[in-house]
C-alpha cells in the first residue's frame, strides 16, 4: 500500500513537466487513483500520457474553482475547437467525471444546431460514403431532416467556421 506520508502526488505530463498535486485532486482522476492503489510501494512519480502541461494547468484551475464552490465559473471559451478536443481526450484518459461532463457539454454546445458540414469539419470526419450510399442513407433517414429551412448539404458550400 502506498504509504507516502506526503499529501502531494507527483504527476509527469507527456511534455516532461512534473506537477505536484494534492492527493484530493489526484483522487478525482480515477486513472491515477487506480495506479496509486495498485502500487505497493511509494510511488515517486506517475506518468500521465496524453496529458500535457497546459491541460494540467486547466485541470488545476477547475479543481480550485470547484473546491471553492465556483465550478460554474470555469470556462473553456478561449480554447479553439482542436484545443478543446485535445483537452477532452486528456480528461477522458484521466477519467475525471465532473470535468468530463463539463467538457462534453462544451463540445455539444459548440455543435448545437450546426449543419452536417460543420460537424464533419469539427470532428475531422472523412466522408467515406459513395455518392450513392450517401443518397441512400439520406433518403432512409429523411424523417430526421424534415421541417428545416436549410437542407444540411447546402451548408457545406458555405465553408462555415
Amino acid at each position, binding site marked *: 500500500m502506498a504509504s507516502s506520508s506526503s499529501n502531494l502526488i507527483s504527476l509527469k505530463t507527456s511534455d516532461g513537466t512534473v506537477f505536484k498535486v494534492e492527493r484530493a485532486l489526484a483522487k478525482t482522476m480515477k486513472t491515477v487513483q487506480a495506479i496509486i492503489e495498485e502500487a505497493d510501494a511509494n510511488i515517486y512519480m506517475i506518468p500521465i500520457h496524453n496529458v500535457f502541461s497546459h491541460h494540467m494547468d486547466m485541470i488545476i484551475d477547475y479543481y480550485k474553482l470547484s473546491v471553492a464552490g465556483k465550478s460554474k465559473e470555469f470556462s473553456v471559451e478561449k480554447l479553439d475547437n482542436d484545443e478543446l478536443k485535445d483537452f477532452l481526450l486528456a480528461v477522458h484518459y484521466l477519467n475525471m467525471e465532473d470535468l468530463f461532463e463539463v467538457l462534453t457539454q462544451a463540445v455539444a454546445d459548440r455543435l448545437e444546431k450546426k449543419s452536417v458540414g460543420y460537424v464533419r469539419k469539427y470532428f*475531422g470526419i472523412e466522408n467515406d460514403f459513395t455518392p450513392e450510399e450517401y443518397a441512400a442513407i439520406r433518403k432512409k433517414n429523411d424523417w430526421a431532416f424534415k421541417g428545416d429551412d436549410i437542407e444540411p448539404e447546402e451548408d457545406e458550400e458555405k465553408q462555415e467556421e
Partner: protein
Amino acid sequence: MVVRQKSDFPDSGRILKRSKPLMSDSALQDKDTNDAVEGKDKFEDMPNCVVLHTLSFMETKDAVRTCVLSKRWRNLWTGIPCLNFNSKSFSRLVDFRRFVVCVLSRRDSSAVKVLNYSRTGVDYATDQNLFNKVIDYVTSHGVEEIRVNLRAKGRGSPPVDIPLSLFNCVSLKKLQLKDCHPSKATWILPFEPPKHLLHLKQFTLDPTAPGHPYSFAGLANIFGFATLTTLNLCRLTLSFTGYETLNPFENCLNLKNLLLREIRFMLEPVPEDFVISAPQLNNLTLMCCRFFKCNLVIAAPKLISFNYLYAAPGAMFEFNIPSVHNFTINICEPQNKLGAPHQKPGEKTKHGLIKMFREGPEAELSFSTAVVSCGAVIMPKKKCPSCCRCQWKALNLRVGSTYKVFVNKLDQITAYFRHCSQHGEYDVLSI
C-alpha cells in the same frame, strides 16, 4: 432531394488543420491513403463512449443527423443514452411526431438514461398517444430522469393522462412535470399506492391550471414520496378532505429540500393548521403561497434555511428551530420583477407572527434582516443599516425557550421577541 455530384463533397483538405495531403475529389473514393483514419486525427480516435456522451447533450434531432457523416457514424446515434425531443425544432407537429416514432423504432436496445420531452401544442390539444409511446418506451429502457413540458400555445396546458408505465417505473429517480395539466382520470382518483416507484429522488410539478385541485394524498400515493430528497410543487391548488390538521409531508422520510411556490387551498374547506414536517428537511422555501385563515406550522428538526417570499398579509407561522448552527430565515416581499408589490408603498403590513420552539443545545441564530427601499425589499448581507431599528445580528437561544418574533412594518423592521416558557409566562424584550 437531389444529391449533388462529387464536387459538392467537402474536400478533406479543408477540414483538418494539421498537415495532410489535399485530396482531389476522385481520391475521396480511395480509402487507403488517409492517415486520418489511422489515428493521427484526434477525433476519429475518439472512442464511441465519448462521442455518445457528447451527443447526449445535443437535441436528438441534431444527433440523428450524424448518420450521414461517415460509415462509422451511420448507426452511432442509435446508442445515445439521452433523448431530447423538442417540438419547437420542427415547423410542423406532424414532422415532430414522425421523428419521435422513427427514433423510438430505430434505436438500439441500450438504456435511456434521460428523457427531455417538450411538446408545445398549437391549440388546446395534446398528442396523448405519442406521449404514451414515449413514456412507455423510456420506462422499459431503464430511464432515470424524465422532464416533460407540454405547454399549449396561449391557452395554458391541455389535459393529459400520465401513462401507467410511469408509475410502475422502478429506475426513475428524477421527475419533472411542467405544464401538464392532469386530466381528472389519473390524478384525483384514489390510487392503490404503487409499491414499485420506490426510487424517486426528485419531483417537480409545475402545472399551469391553477384552478384544478389536487389531492396531495393522491399525489403522494401516486409518486411514492417516501424516497424523495427534493420536491418542488409549483402553482398547485391543494384540495383538502376536511380533517383538522394537514400534514402532507410527514411520510417523506428522506426529504431534504422542499419548495412550495404559489400553492393555495381551495376556498372551502381550509385546514386549521398546515403542518410542514419532515424529519430530514434541510431547506424550505415558500414563495407566494396563499394560506388564508390557515396556520402554517413548520416542524423540521434539521432545518438549515427557511426562505419565505411573501405575498399576502396576515401569514402566521410557527416552527421548531433545529438543533444546528447557522439557521437562517429570510423573509422578503416580491420585488418588481415579479410584478407590482402587493401592498401600496407605505401601507402597514403585518407580516406575521413567527413562533419558535427551541429544543437542543445552544446555537446561534442569525436573521437576515430586511431593509426597505422604494417599497421593495433588499436583503443586506450581514449588518443592519442605520435606518433600521434592529441592530442585532445574532441571537442566542436557550434550551426550552419559546420565542415569538413579530415582524411589523416593512419600512421599519422591528422585531419583538417574546420569551415564553411552555406555561405561557413571558417576558417582552424589544430590541
